[in-house]
């Protein structure tokens, strides 16, 4: 057995089946919350905000809201995927199976990224009901969505690996990611901030992700697109390195 295709397939389908079983929580919930954002920010507040870079406010916030959903869903789906078998003890069968660490991570992250992309597409379709959305660079948008889904699914996998209880697992998405997305220009342009806060925002990596996606949609960004792509690839490589190190050490899953 050079590669364990059926082992990879088993984990991938098992995770996708969890998505199906929890469809209400996995799909309906993000769609509902994003719809509420569009109603409150896009329709109500948006009517009082002038166009940004020639884009209506409702349309302007679409990439930011997609990114918010993508990041939180990628992290929560994959962190839960690996944490749950660790929590209930059923992880033993993955550790005892003839499957490599790489195949295992690929299956969990692949399933997490797939779920995230499904949700991302649904959010994109939902946003069309509320505002006018145009996609100037569709291939770039797909590339960025896939890259972000994979990178943050891997980040979620890392959180799930390192967490020893449910509280720890929710700390980073709730206390780190969500504030970073909101403060990363998801609902406003960086030009609208005072110079000091603009400088502070440059240290928020999510800013580059949101701007990259906004560029794919409308050709408008606070940064060069290559800075956005470069920062995403840097974060992906960092996640791969840390996950590889943690798994090699067997931390929290193998004595």
């Amino acid at each position: 057995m050079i590669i364990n295709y059926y082992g990879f397939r088993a984990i991938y389908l098992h995770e996708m089946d969890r998505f199906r079983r929890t469809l209400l929580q996995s799909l309906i919930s993000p769609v509902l919350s994003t719809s509420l954002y569009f109603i409150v920010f896009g329709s109500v507040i948006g009517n009082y905000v002038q166009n940004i870079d020639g884009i209506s406010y409702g349309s302007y916030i679409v990439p930011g809201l997609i990114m918010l959903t993508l990041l939180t869903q990628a992290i929560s789906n994959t962190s839960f995927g690996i944490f749950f078998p660790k929590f209930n003890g059923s992880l033993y069968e993955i550790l005892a199976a003839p499957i490599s660490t790489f195949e295992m991570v690929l299956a969990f992250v692949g399933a997490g990224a797939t779920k995230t992309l499904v949700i991302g597409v649904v959010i994109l379709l939902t946003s069309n009901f509320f505002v006018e959305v145009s996609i100037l660079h569709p291939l770039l948008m797909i590339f960025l969505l896939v890259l972000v889904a994979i990178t943050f699914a891997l980040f979620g996998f890392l959180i799930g690996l390192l967490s020893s209880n449910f509280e720890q697992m929710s700390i980073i998405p709730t206390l780190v990611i969500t504030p970073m997305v909101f403060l990363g220009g998801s609902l406003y342009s960086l030009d609208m901030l005072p110079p000091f806060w603009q400088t502070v925002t440059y240290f928020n990596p999510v800013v580059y992700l949101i701007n990259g996606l906004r560029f794919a949609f409308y050709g408008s960004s606070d940064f060069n697109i290559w800075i956005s792509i470069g920062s995403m690839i840097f974060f992906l490589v960092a996640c791969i390195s840390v996950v590889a190190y943690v798994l090699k050490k067997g931390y929290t899953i193998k004595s």
Partner: protein
Amino acid sequence: MTQNLISINKLSKTYSNGLQALKDVSLDIKKGEIIAMLGPNGAGKTTLISIICGIVTPSSGEVNVDGFDIIKNYRETRSKIGLVPQELTLENFETVFNNVSYTRGLYGKAPNAQYVEKILKDLYLWDKKDDILRQLSGGMKRRVLIAKALSHEPSILFLDEPTAGVDVELRKDMWKVVERLRENGVTIILTTHYIEEAEAIADRVAVINHGEIIVVDQKKDLLSKMGRKKLRIDLHEKAEVIPESLMKYDLELSNNKLSITYSYDTQKQRTGITNLLQDLRDQGLKLKDLKTEESTLEKIFVTLVKENNDN
């Protein structure tokens, strides 16, 4: 000569908290045999199994399964092994059928609904195939764990306390399953607290204490080598003390003074029974009844562990 399927050579494990769970353990397990590993809690049984299965990393030593190293050739070794863990660790929200099929896939086997159906029928689980795992009783969950361990047609099966917490009927059912597996050539390594279980189904017994194997032998040989017999002699009338002339027999007088127990070694050429009975008659003690009782594996196990602890 029978082929060794598993060779464990000087295996040691020290956990990060400093606990030395295994100390230079060496053991060969032959193809097709059932070996029971007995030992008190914390003796190192589960650690040993976990290392062979790939769940725990050894500190030193090596293990070969069918000629393959468990670390370098982990795909070959793990695909041959099925594991029934001690704890009832199952995904609670899946159906029995899907969960057993999932394990088959993990071990690199193509989906095979007919084979999964056969296992579930063999383990009397077929009528539960669509039930959600959390709805099952503890005994049923235990059967599901066995079904999962067999789902990829392993040639080696590790049963870590397989009948812990199950009722007598289910325990006997499981013994039948184990017997059928043995007939199909599956090598079985069993850890158990129920010595009766080892006595009923094992070919060989290994006793582990404080991370070391203190005895490993054929069950029959162990019983005959270490087993002692007791002769209980019931008396017609009370004997207040053991007479001086009978002291050499190391007799035990019961609390009610109405019976005497004599322990003897069946392996010895002379058991001393004839002389004892003659001496009892000479002392004027009238015999009412005679009974013999053989040492069980449990008594041997307790003696071995006690001696090991004392040392």
